[in-house]
């Protein structure tokens, strides 16, 4: 309650929370693009999504340690994670891609734990940060600050979203991906190499997450166990936005970011992540009710 009073007494704080929420929300959206893609095309809910983000963060960290500016780590992380995603598809995911959703959730969940523990063994459990070397803008006499790296992250997320839409609409591979998403069997009959399509989709997802991870390392911190909240956030974003609409994913991401910032401020930081999960439950219940209503209407 006190926190709400502060907010009313100093409305300028809302501006800070709003801006921060929008900017970090874009990063959440970036992670969610891939989940939407994999979910839509392969009917797989990738629980290891956050772990790809974590690995991307470590790529940025080690490149930074090697003296390379971490902004260059974004493409490098994307390429490395693409290879990893591809390899994981070829070794694990292709075994579960046509199976029940439950099987693939379990498989990716296991994959997530494996990646976490491997990272813990390889990189250690220490918390790392990657300095972006960028500064902060101050507005309104220091009452509002905007970190430049967050702005870059937001613009990047927007550009990747546009590029993704273009890729899916225009490029040959994108068309094959969409065809496979609509009907894998039919696509196969028409000569689309669906295995290739799946592998590319999964690799692309990992690549986007990797790039997001490099940004996460520059904005916050990285450690082997940071994955789960990112998986939960992207799951929620995709549940809200649907699997076939990248633009909606972006907007839902922004919305989640803002909601989280305000929840963190008014309810206290300890409920910031809890709020995400609570919201997820509410949204799932609400969707169920709505679906049930639609069914009744149809029958």
């Amino acid at each position, binding site marked *: 309650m006190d926190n709400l009073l502060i907010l009313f007494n100093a409305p300028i704080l809302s501006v800070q929370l709003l801006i921060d929420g929008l900017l970090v929300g874009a990063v959440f959206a970036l992670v969610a693009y891939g989940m939407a893609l994999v979910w839509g095309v392969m009917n797989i809910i990738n629980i290891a999504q956050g772990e790809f983000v974590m690995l991307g963060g470590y790529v940025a960290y080690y490149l930074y340690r090697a003296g390379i500016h971490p902004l260059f780590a974004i493409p490098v992380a994307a390429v490395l994670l693409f290879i990893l995603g591809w390899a994981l598809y070829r070794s694990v995911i292709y075994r579960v891609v046509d199976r029940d959703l439950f099987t693939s959730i379990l498989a990716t969940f296991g994959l997530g734990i494996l990646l976490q523990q491997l990272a813990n063994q390889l990189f250690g459990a220490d918390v790392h940060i990657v300095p972006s070397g960028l500064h902060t803008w101050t507005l309104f006499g*220091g009452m509002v600050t905007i970190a430049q790296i967050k702005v870059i992250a937001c613009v990047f997320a927007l550009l990747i979203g546009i590029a993704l839409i273009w890729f899916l609409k225009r490029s040959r591979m994108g068309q094959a991906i969409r065809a496979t998403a609509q009907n894998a069997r039919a696509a196969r009959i028409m000569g689309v190499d669906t295995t290739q399509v799946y592998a590319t989709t999964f690799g692309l997802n990992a690549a986007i997450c990797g790039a997001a991870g490099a940004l996460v390392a520059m904005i916050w911190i990285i450690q082997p*166990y940071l994955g789960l909240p990112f998986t939960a956030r992207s799951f929620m974003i995709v549940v809200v936005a649907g699997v076939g609409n990248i633009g909606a994913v972006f907007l839902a991401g922004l919305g989640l970011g803002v909601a989280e910032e305000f929840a963190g401020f008014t309810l*206290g930081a300890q409920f910031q992540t809890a709020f995400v999960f609570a919201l997820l439950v509410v949204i799932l219940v609400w969707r169920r009710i709505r679906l049930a209503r639609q069914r009744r209407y149809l029958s």
Partner: protein
Amino acid sequence: MYKKPIKFLLMGLSIFGAATLSALPALSLAADNTIVLGAAVSLTGKYSTNGKHTKNGYDLAIKRVNELGGVKVGAKRYKLKVIYYDDESTPARGAQLAERLISQDHVKFLLGPYSSGLTKAIAPITEKYHIPMVEGNGASVSLFNKGYRYLFATLSTTEYYLKSALELLAEETKKQGKDPSSLRIAMAFENDPFSRDIRQGVLDEAKKYGMKVVVDDKLPPDLSDMTATLTKVRALKPDALLVSGHAKGAALVTRQAHEMHVRPAMIATTHCDSARIAQNQPQAAEGILCASQWDASLNYKGPWFGTASQYAQRFKKAYGYAPPYQGAESSAAVLVFVSAFQRANSLDPTKVRDAISATDMQTFYGNIKFDSTGKNIAKPMVLYQIQDGKYKVVAPTKWANAKVVYPLK
């Protein structure tokens, strides 16, 4: 196609086999002239880094004691040995392993695991079997109000962690001719047993001085962003910001307070060294105060290792990195056992327990003397400040090697 799963299975089995083999202890059918200690430490899982420091600390002390001829009990000299198990950073596993160490490996003396949570899981078991456990890494004050008789800790318990920061704050305020009761403080503490104790200590201290707490945020265990809390701090302009959220909290408050230009007169946190804020974010970390159990530059001295800095040299030579306090307090736990064996003149667990309880010794790690609950009351917490990118001890003033920069710029 069909062969592949079998190959995978075989591969998995062989990995599993190798893992179990390496985890098997060298059987504790110890020769007559060896004292076997047991320890469950976190070699994998989220505490693996600190678990490794703990193990290194134990090993270094064991090696040193054995090098110097071992422990003299009665007319006989004994070498020391430790049986380790990996508790995977999970309390349930730790309890299981303690049970195994005691009933299967017949270990009579236990060294502690890493973290309060693990210690909390193991203490009831050592208590049940009347096996003394000396630990250097379970600081939660809640370990010492349960009436355990066989648990002893070499480190300062949690409620002291940030008390010294408030003392320093009050001291500096008085120097400026102001009343400490005019001070307003903001706190952000994780909601785990460790940080809750610290918070309680801070609250008691604030009450003593009549300071006002204006922000009292609890941080989540999977903390990844402190913007919301810091926005509040910026609006309310307190005189001090106190944070405890393990390495994540330290790294984040350093990064984001700098980024958001939040600069109260004092920022104090725990776990700066494990977050490596001075090395990784020298600019942002400048002036931040850090609570620590121990530092190599302190003026402590004792048998086996000599001074704190000699200990540090030895540690660095053995493991290639400067000793974090987790290593030092673990080594000190071994030294407590050694001293107790000698004073008890016996290897009977009960007699050793009584000898431990009567410990009053000086070590490289500081003085060690246990109160009736088993916690070390002879050693104060120290407070670092990051000055020109280096850790300088600024409190308690008695051991300080630098003057505190206050207020923060």
